[in-house]
């Protein structure tokens, strides 16, 4: 009853193709956007913006990228963090050396990352599954190695760290947490809409056919080479933009160690926990993996003084690990599926038959 699907009639093609055909969804999304664009910037303090919202949005974007590759196209990758590094370092060089407008730098970072990503995606045409993981692992190590050893890409900094130059859009400097938050939000929303349209169109269907049965999809005329590489390049593009956002909007100064293998695993974890093949799942998964440890940490800290601090800090990892297992047992298809189930229940609630 709460979540009504009946009574919604579609009389035009446009209505039929809408992302949110139900008025309830439309309103819900509208309220969410109002909260994101107006309420949060006006009420949130600096801590919430810089340490919670910005990383959450950026990692959601990165997860979305990997979700396109893993969730929609069925190609496993462990090089995602390295592609983020490519984006960050490219954007830095474009901004520091060429002094390009910041949005162009993000775009350039994404494109560079897409180019390199599709290069490392070539093996996917011949191999899949675990073998592909190994091939993408090579991307992780190669890119890290190149960035560490080629001093030019980090601006000859002794430590290989990039210190991002100040940002400016149309003469207005992007400096305060609110401005950085809004910039991140706009980039993330634009790219999310793009991704949503990509996956529900021809390309997305081709990807899903490859995921579900590669041989069958090839027989019906889906070019494996083209679509697999496209998946790799789109996925790396998202990673690249997310990496650039981390460098410019989140940390301000990054080293290549920021984008180590562990981060690739984390993002893969976000995809799995959030739900493979789901845009919403990318956000839920990123929220789970980024925000939950901080939350647990703050709760556990309450016991400081009673419990020795070394046990206290490890407690955070234990609870977090336990929760991952818990959620995967309860809902192997991820948090997005949980949301579907809740929606299904709300359809009948409060009078289930």
């Amino acid at each position, binding site marked *: 009853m709460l979540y009504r699907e009946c009574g919604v009639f579609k009389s035009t093609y446009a209505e039929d193709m809408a992302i949110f055909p139900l008025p309830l969804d439309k309103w819900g999304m509208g309220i969410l956007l109002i909260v994101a664009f107006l309420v949060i910037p006006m009420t949130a303090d600096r801590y919430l913006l810089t340490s919670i919202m910005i990383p959450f949005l950026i990692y959601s974007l990165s997860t979305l990228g990997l979700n396109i590759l893993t969730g929609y196209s069925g190609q496993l990758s462990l090089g995602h963090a390295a592609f983020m590094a490519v984006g960050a370092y490219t954007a830095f060089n474009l901004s520091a050396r060429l002094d390009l407008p910041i949005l162009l730098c993000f775009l350039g970072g994404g494109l560079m990352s897409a180019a390199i990503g599709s290069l490392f995606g070539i093996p996917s045409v011949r191999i899949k599954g675990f073998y592909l993981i190994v091939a993408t692992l090579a991307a992780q190590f190669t890119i890290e*190695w190149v960035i*560490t050893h080629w001093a030019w890409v980090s601006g000859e900094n*002794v*430590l290989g760290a990039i*210190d991002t130059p100040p940002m400016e859009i149309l003469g207005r400097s992007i400096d305060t947490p609110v401005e950085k938050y809004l910039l991140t939000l706009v980039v993330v929303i634009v790219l999310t809409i793009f991704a949503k349209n990509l996956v529900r169109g021809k390309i997305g269907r081709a990807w899903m056919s490859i995921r579900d049965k590669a041989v069958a999809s090839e027989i019906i005329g889906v070019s494996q080479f083209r679509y697999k590489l496209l998946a790799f390049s789109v996925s790396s593009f998202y990673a690249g933009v997310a990496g650039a956002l981390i460098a410019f909007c989140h940390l301000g100064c990054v080293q290549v160690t920021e984008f180590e293998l562990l981060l690739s695993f984390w993002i893969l974890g976000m995809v799995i926990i959030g739900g493979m093949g789901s845009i919403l799942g990318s956000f839920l998964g990123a929220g789970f993996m980024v925000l939950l440890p*901080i939350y647990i940490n703050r*709760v556990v800290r309450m016991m400081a003084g009673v419990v020795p*601090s070394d046990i206290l800090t490890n407690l955070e990892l234990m609870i977090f690990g336990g929760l991952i297992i818990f959620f995967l047992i*309860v809902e192997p298809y991820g948090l997005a599926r949980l949301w579907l189930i809740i929606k299904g229940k709300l359809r009948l609630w409060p009078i289930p038959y």
Partner: protein
Amino acid sequence: MGRKLIFGLFAMVLVASMVVVSGQALAAEKKKEPPKQYIPLFAYRTGPFQAGGSGQAGGNEDWYTLVNIKGGLNGVMIEFEECETGYNTARGVECYERVKSKNPVHIQPWSTAVAYALIERATKDKIPLSTIGYGRADASDGTVFKYVFPLVTNYWSLSTAKIRYIAQVEGGLEKLKGLKIANLHLDHPYGRETRFILEIMAKKFGFEVKHFPVPWPGIDQKSIFLNIRRFKPDWIINRNWGVSCTVPIREAARIGFPRDRMLAVWWCGSEEDVMPAGPAAKGYLATSFHGVGKDFPVIQEILEKVHHTGKGNISYGRVGSALYNKGIIQGILTTEAILTAQKKFGNRPITGEEMQYGLENLNITKERIKELGAEGLMPPVKTSCRNHEGFDLMLVQQWDGNKWVQVSGWIEPFKDLVRAEIEKSAGKYAKEKGITPRKCE
């Protein structure tokens, strides 16, 4: 049914935790106590480097506990709080934003990467960043980095001091000519940082330096030592970290390289690094910036007043270990800087901006060190507007199979050489960031 039960329980736990969090927040506002000096500690008790993070945090906390037992700093009690970073930059930045509202007196990130990420933020927020013994080396130039204090020493100074020590052992600077030194370093920004300064030294004194990068995380170094054996070095500089510190000791034993010709960076000079190597580590040398062991009045006092009363913040066995002593020195430097600031601003909790004055006008004389009971544990420190490093002397310690033994006096780096590089690098930073270096004096 089972699922419903689990979800119900889960929801209850979640709600309960939220109630606790908000309740605590409300309670904190109601409390009325005399203001305390808040000092955050960015510890890391998890992750690959937890030995380093927990040892230093323990030393720091024990020192603050002792200060509180003795009545605080001119009556101002210290309130210290840990924030776990796990040696992760993003978590470090999160910690910074979390503690910022509590008026922290300074930030000690204990991680070079976190330090880099915080320099600009902290400068803007006027909170000093103390990177004691690590961090950005060129931040020693106080004219450009007003709020960054790489106190004690930095990696560049330390590297030149290592060369001076080698010269001492070999019998004079002129004996360096023709020596072969292998720089075994982690292939990682931190490891690569000192390559250039060693090359400058090599050119100046006519020795040969060859770099042997160790791929992260450096658990297997057999092939590297094969190359080292071919190079036939007279000395090996061990600039690794964590587990990769221990591996070279064993490998050196295997190829028969004398361990007393291995000189390690201070991160590789803790008990946790040499113990796993067992007898192979006997004779191994490491640099440090503090005395070794627990035979110092200040540590004895901590044992008596803190640990024997059950208030210790670290296991009893680790008191007096290398990392612990570093924590003590870091604690002493912090409280001394607060006292310096109190002299100017009054006996009350000091803000970050006032702490900047305290750190910049730090003057810990020999007499003061004796008063603190830290004679031999630390050398005198004197900072200035221009020089944020304070002192840059180093000691060499040797592992005798059971414990560290100090084998050298305080060794000076090649100050002018390092200073020139620091100013060059800081100047470049200032130019990139559009900072006008401030005038000193």
